[in-house]
């Protein structure tokens, strides 16, 4: 019988066990990045800037030139990279604590300068790596290890909607929020990522893709319940879609 190749894992995705917890969405995002870069023929010219968090080990899985940045500083590091190596495709991978809390100044200004980089922002509403503390994205009422009664707006403020904030900045050419919790969302996410790479390749400006992600471990849920939570709680709080694409057709 003739064998038909129905699926091939990207060459630049390392064939190794990951450190991610079962049901973690980081792994899915990693794989999507690897195939996105490879399919677009960009892997060999990519420089990835890894942030601090559960995605910090991306260099063990997505095999491209990679530089580690201090917590929150990845957009500034990537600025230095892109300005020094303008022909490279520069990719930044940050979590929500990293990007929306300690690194808020760096992300806002890299975006506002219109740095020609692509930021992949993985929002799982908690500080995953440090054990599930409140993040700037934690939803109202959501229990974390530092909001044992659930996040209260009066004392803890509100979940930050970074894609909406990014969209308002003139330096941003592309901003989208996607999810990877089902096939339909995965397909849209793939498309958004491809578009973000195109925006950088065409020198149009700053691209931002927010991935809503499950952290089953710190949500104290199994993988299926965590996937459902993305639909039931996260998407209502963080609406999906292409929020900005200055060069593309109006969405």
């Amino acid at each position, binding site marked *: 019988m003739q064998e038909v190749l129905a699926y091939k894992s990207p060459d630049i995705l390392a064939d190794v066990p990951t450190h991610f917890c079962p049901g973690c969405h980081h792994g899915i995002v990693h794989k999507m990045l690897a195939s996105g870069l490879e399919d677009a023929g960009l892997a060999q010219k990519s*420089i990835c800037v890894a942030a601090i968090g559960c995605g910090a080990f991306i260099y063990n899985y997505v095999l*491209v030139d*990679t530089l580690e940045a201090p917590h929150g*500083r990845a957009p500034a*590091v990537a600025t*230095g990279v892109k*300005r*020094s190596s303008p022909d*490279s495709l520069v990719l930044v991978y940050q979590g929500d604590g990293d990007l929306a809390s300690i690194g808020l100044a760096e992300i806002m200004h890299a975006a506002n300068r219109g740095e020609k980089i692509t930021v992949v922002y993985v929002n799982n509403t908690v500080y995953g790596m440090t054990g599930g503390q409140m993040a700037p994205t934690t939803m109202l009422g959501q229990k974390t290890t530092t909001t044992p009664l659930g996040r209260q707006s009066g004392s803890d403020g509100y979940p930050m909607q970074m894609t909406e904030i990014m969209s308002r900045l003139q330096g941003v050419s592309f901003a989208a929020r996607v999810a990877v919790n089902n096939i339909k969302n995965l397909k849209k996410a793939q498309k958004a990522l491809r578009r973000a790479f195109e925006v950088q390749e065409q020198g149009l400006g700053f691209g931002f893709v927010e991935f809503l992600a499950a952290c089953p471990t710190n949500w104290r849920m199994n993988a299926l319940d965590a996937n459902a939570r993305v639909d039931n709680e996260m998407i209502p709080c963080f609406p999906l879609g292409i929020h900005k694409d200055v060069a593309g057709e109006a969405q």
Partner: protein
Amino acid sequence: MSRIFVKGNEAIARGAVDAGCRCYFGYPITPQNDIPEYLSRVLPVSGGEFIQAESEIAAANMLLGAGACGVRAMTSSSSPGISLKQEAISYMAGSDLPGVIVNISRGGPGLGDIGPSQGDYFQAVKGGGHGDYRQIVLAPGSVQEAYDLTFEAFDLAFEYRNPVMILGDAILGQMMEPIDTREPAGPDLQEAASWRLEGSGERSPRIIRSLRLAEGTLGRHNQDLQEKYIKARKEIRHEEFLTSDARLVVVAFGSIGRIVKSTVRKLRKEGHMVGLLRPITLFPFPAPALQDLARQGKRFMTIEHNMGQMVEDVRLSICGLAESGFYGHLPGNLPTPEDFEEPILKELTG
């Protein structure tokens, strides 16, 4: 090349451009603003990159990114801003990355003032950020030396793959002197070819990071760093002035070294047997030269524009051979050669 009349700050900025600096990242702070202002005019029109960053934190991290691409890059600031750069400098040291950091230091602690001070000596030579690392520290004493040492700073940063600091102060930054410039160095595209990030192309991907979790790797890296610092001892530089027959050797660095030199010259004319040793590299420290003088039976006195920092390294260097007296000039005003006469005479006769 040519003879020009410039401030210390501008000499550093010109030195950077002539040494092949392609990227500059900074944030405004007195008394170093001439550096970014000069480079904002010159770098972009010569194919380089100038960024006024959102903070010193961001500027130092941009330096880290440029260093990882093997590009000659620089940031500059003054004391409060240098504190903010320490995180990135520690990561650069931990990732073996080159970069030049200029500190035109001012009075502290806190906001202090905008006048000269040497209060950042410890921060500069003992690491400054977290972890067991050092940066190479160069301390120019004149505008010409500020220009020349900027060339050295870039060469050393790439030779040792380590952050290099030029430690000046408000006196050096604002002082105007004639200098001779050099033939600009074209960028050496090969100096980082074996390790820089540029996209993997046909080779296997490179990773630059400070995180070392695998058993034994962090210990080994700390050991490698120490070996690097020992190797860097061959870069030690210092100036001696009238030390051979001196009874008392005054040790002073940077612009204070320069001012003390005038004091020593005057006291010599009056028949007092004093000399000067001016460390030019603060790390690595010119301990061997001090030890040589100590073995000759010299006495020592350290003068600083702080309440006693470098004196600890002087005492450590000559420990068991000699002692060092100390005189500290308080920040808040500009010392003159006369300010040091009485303290030196007191030490000499004491």
